[in-house]
């Protein structure tokens, strides 16, 4: 009735173009595969030692985690704020929802270049801040070794907050009107209604948004490439930027080692995070 043959095309594509390269990752990370010679030999842990000793493995891992957590917080927070602000179906709200969704459609590169121009030390944002404060403002938004990762995470959240908003709006719509009516009759304040009724009921939307933001930004690349390219002083160099740079230098095996590190990071972190969020959904 449900023939096995229907499974074949999908699993063939998955096996060859998804699982096989993943298995290759565990092999070629321990070889000397590079652009400089044709033959490939096993070299044991030499690549791992190399990326550990020059500090790039740990610093890229740290930056990737910081970036992903910042994006998850900002993207979900902005999305929820927008959804609550634009919840009622007025003409202005509908218009604003459309406008906030435009960045979702734009390529992340395009968004990145726009913010690179906007955030220059002598650029428009500092100009506006200067006009507001009456002082000469030269904040190095993209030039600080400490804070630029926050700026870049903000730019990425700016691009995706419209999607989070739409998902929260759909979640808010599923809350039955009589539940909110009952809360109102019981004299619950706006905040109390939100905290005890609405927020728990949109928990699935929170899970979805946090999980997609985390996973999406573990794989973060384009926004960072277009704003800082990994700088200043490699302080926004997430794993994928590192992979791209090292691959471009012909050090394929080192790039593979980092790709393996990304795989293990995601496998180690994503499953518990999603499990935790799902459990919270049930408790609430």
């Amino acid at each position: 009735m449900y023939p096995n043959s229907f499974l074949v095309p999908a699993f063939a594509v998955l096996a060859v173009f998804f699982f096989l390269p993943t298995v290759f990752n565990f092999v070629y990370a321990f070889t000397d595969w590079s652009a400089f010679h044709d033959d490939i030999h096993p070299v044991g842990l030499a690549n791992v030692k190399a990326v550990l000793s020059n500090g790039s493995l740990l610093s890229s891992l740290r930056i990737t985690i910081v970036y992903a957590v910042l994006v998850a917080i900002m993207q979900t927070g902005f999305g929820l704020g927008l959804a609550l602000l634009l919840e009622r179906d007025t003409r202005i709200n509908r218009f604003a929802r459309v406008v906030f969704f435009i960045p979702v459609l734009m390529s992340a590169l395009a968004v990145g270049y726009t913010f690179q121009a906007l955030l220059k030390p002598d650029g428009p944002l500092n100009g506006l801040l200067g006009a507001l404060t009456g002082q000469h403002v030269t904040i190095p938004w993209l030039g600080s070794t400490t804070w630029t990762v926050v700026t870049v995470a903000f730019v990425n959240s700016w691009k995706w907050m419209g999607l989070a908003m739409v998902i929260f709006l759909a979640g808010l719509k599923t809350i039955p009107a009589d539940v909110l009516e009952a809360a109102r009759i019981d004299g619950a304040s706006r905040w109390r209604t939100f905290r005890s009724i609405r927020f728990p009921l949109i928990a699935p939307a929170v899970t979805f948004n946090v999980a997609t933001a985390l996973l999406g930004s573990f794989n973060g690349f384009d926004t960072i490439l277009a704003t800082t390219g990994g700088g200043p002083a490699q302080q926004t160099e997430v794993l994928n930027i590192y992979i791209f740079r090292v691959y471009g230098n012909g050090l394929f095996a080192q790039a593979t080692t980092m790709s393996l590190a990304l795989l293990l990071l995601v496998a180690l972190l994503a499953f518990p995070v999603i499990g935790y969020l799902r459990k919270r959904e049930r408790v609430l």
Partner: protein
Amino acid sequence: MRISTRTWSRLVHPAVVIILTAVVIGIPLWLALVTSAKSQGEANLPDLSLPRVWHLWDNYSQAFTQGRMLWALFGSLLVMVPSVAGVLIFGSLASWVLARRAGRVMAVLYSAAISGIILPPAVVTIVLLLRQLHLASTPIGMMLVYMGMYMSLVIFFVTGFVRTIPVEVEEAARMDGARPLGIFIKVVLPLLRPVIATATILICLYIWNDVFYAFFVLGGGTYSTLPLNLYSVASSNLYQNNWNLVFAYVVLMSLPLVVVFVVAQRRIISGITGGAVK
């Protein structure tokens, strides 16, 4: 002083929404628009002022030719359309079987199939594999890579959706002696429309805007895509400062999607949420 609920919803709230929209989204988009119409010298240090001299046509035609937009548009479509069609057809065929058949084997296959939602693609070794298959730098290789990447998403969405469809709807067709493929095409596929819409929109967005995987697979080859060419236009910005061309390219590249969205926004938004949040 307390603001009454009425003034809040009639005056303050709309004002807050308009100001927020104008500042948060309006300023960045305005910057891209005005800079795309300036001369190279004036765009050297991008600001929010209107162009003193309008170079709209010059910039757009130069971005169009220098960025090889037609060729890149062709490449983007050539890669995206078959990938999306293939991943949806193969994915929903498999999902139907995975959703309907019980048992340990199916459960294991399903878990394996959806693991790709979480696990990142092994982008470096994909290149090695494609070289061995003589598919490196080809559109076919790119399509197969995208299909492998998004198969998990399709199977996850569609299997969940099929489970909500009662088996009884298939039974009548089965009584009439229809074969499995006939039942799938005539009965099941039409019911999958909402979830297929969701998957189509999301995967089109991802592939259309992807630059990371395209770098590795198509980089150095004859074929290109719109984001890849945007990157090469912007990379020449480093030594010749051509913000005007970068933003002309950005506007040209983003405009089609934005227009499609504004025209069909209700269907697109309900399409995205229809399959994602149950």
